[in-house]
């Protein structure tokens, strides 16, 4: 299966259930969408991520009732620097969708989705631990893998592979 060029035109992607639902609700929430290698990514505006997640979870046609993963990518030196990535799965429709939120590098913060999917608890703590992205509204935002008194965020690109020493 040779690679097809990515589709980034929102008009062509309207038929996807997640995008259709989000556009019908609030076109301003969807910044960009991308269909590449059979996977759909939707860039959501930072302020709307919580509501967008509620909407997608409760969508009767295609309920994304399973949060598979939350992670982050550091695009240093670009601004906005961080991309928080949510992978949602609809168990009944066997569909996946990837939501992304762009965050600036100075004080990255985004609303927590823990109240929507309790599964996000550890995932968001891990992102906070390794990237320093704050999740507002998280019930227990503390380091998960690194020691409590660790300095710095190891998965950031400006953190050396060997660590500071």
């Amino acid at each position: 299966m040779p690679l097809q060029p990515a589709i980034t035109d929102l008009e062509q992607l309207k038929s996807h259930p997640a995008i259709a639902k989000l556009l019908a609700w609030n076109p301003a929430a969807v910044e960009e969408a991308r269909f590449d290698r059979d996977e759909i990514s939707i860039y959501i505006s930072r302020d709307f991520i919580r509501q967008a997640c509620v909407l997608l979870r409760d969508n009767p046609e295609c309920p994304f009732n399973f949060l598979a993963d939350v992670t982050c990518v550091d695009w240093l030196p670009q601004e906005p620097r961080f991309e928080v990535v949510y992978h949602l799965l609809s168990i009944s429709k066997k569909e996946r969708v990837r939501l992304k939120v762009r965050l600036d590098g100075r004080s990255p913060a985004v609303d927590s989705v823990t109240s929507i999917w309790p599964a996000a608890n550890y995932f968001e703590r891990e992102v906070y631990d390794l990237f320093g992205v704050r999740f507002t509204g998280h019930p227990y935002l503390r380091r998960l893998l690194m020691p409590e008194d660790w300095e710095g965020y190891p998965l950031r690109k400006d953190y050396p592979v060997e660590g500071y020493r």
Partner: protein
Amino acid sequence: MAHLTSIPTLEPVEDRTMILNMGPQHPSTHGVLRLILEIDGETVVRMMPDIGYLHTGIEKTCEAKFYQQVVPLTDRIDYLCPLTNNLCYCLAVEKLLGLEIPPKAQWMRVLLNELTRINSHLVWLGTHALDIGAMSVFLYCFREREDILRLFEMVSGQRMMTSYFRIGGLALEPPIGFFERVRHFANRFPSKVDEYENLLTGNPIWTMRTKGVAKITAEDALALGASGPTLRGSGVDFDLRRDMPYSSYEKFKFKVPISTDGDVFARYMCRVQELRESIAMVQQALDGMPEGPIKADAPKVVLPDREKMKTQMEALIYHFKIITEGFAVPAGEVYQAVESPRGEMGYYVVSDGTAKPYRVHMRAACLANLQTLPTMCEGRLIADVVAAIGSIDIVLGEIDR
């Protein structure tokens, strides 16, 4: 979800309760899991898992390696199913590259993955039974596990950290006599599963320790991100091998065992039936194994045969280039999920167009499954905590990465 808002502290919260520290060095926590339990007599009021004791920073290490050099790192994540990790990573990079994998390599991957599943479930069954007090099952399980490890050694030269899959196919042609040995094992194995079941399924002590213990509803399991047998034990019929097939799983016939009780016994039954389904799939893979090459036709990505390197200039150049400067992967991102013995294992690989991955993230099935543990255990006895930990089949290497 009371445990989400509770803060772990070693000070007791009420007069009646006390804090009990369990782990990280505790034989029944299957590694270095630490649990902070607030107990009222023998009853667990609150539970807080504390993890990170095995954190090695594999995700960061991956960013400093060439794509092909990441494969041996993936073995070390979930050390009970190294080949499933290999497969998941290779599938993700192959998707990024747009590579077509020849059928024989795909079927070999299925064959070895199902053997890995059996291997992992045997360790789970043995240690789980050992935790609850059935010593002999452990010895029986490790007897068969030894056979599987010998098969892995035969095909890859390694018993545990196999690294047998490569981006674009397999490392080596399976050796002469390999399939006969697998068939010999596959013919014998179903009677061994009967043996385990004879020891446990009808055993009154086993059923008393597992039935109705550590229950979780389907809604809670889904909300907490549980997958694999932990989810299917609560009655959610979802298996990635059947529902979102990869690596020719769609060509295999198998049932997905589910159970609706949501207790330790339900998860036990799911896994034991999976042992039978997996060995049936191994048989199918042996019967239908296609002929042909084991590597994709992509000289810039797949290392050439040794023989060609000695005779053809071009093959030697490709080999030199792949080893010294890797191969560039077109920019993009991929999330590839496979059904590991523990649930949904996912690799999220981001490429920026260079020869090293920009970001590799592993979605650990165990990390999400661990979140169900407080819901299962709060309000129950301490002895049930041990049964509950065993029933979610925890591997700390995967949780901490």
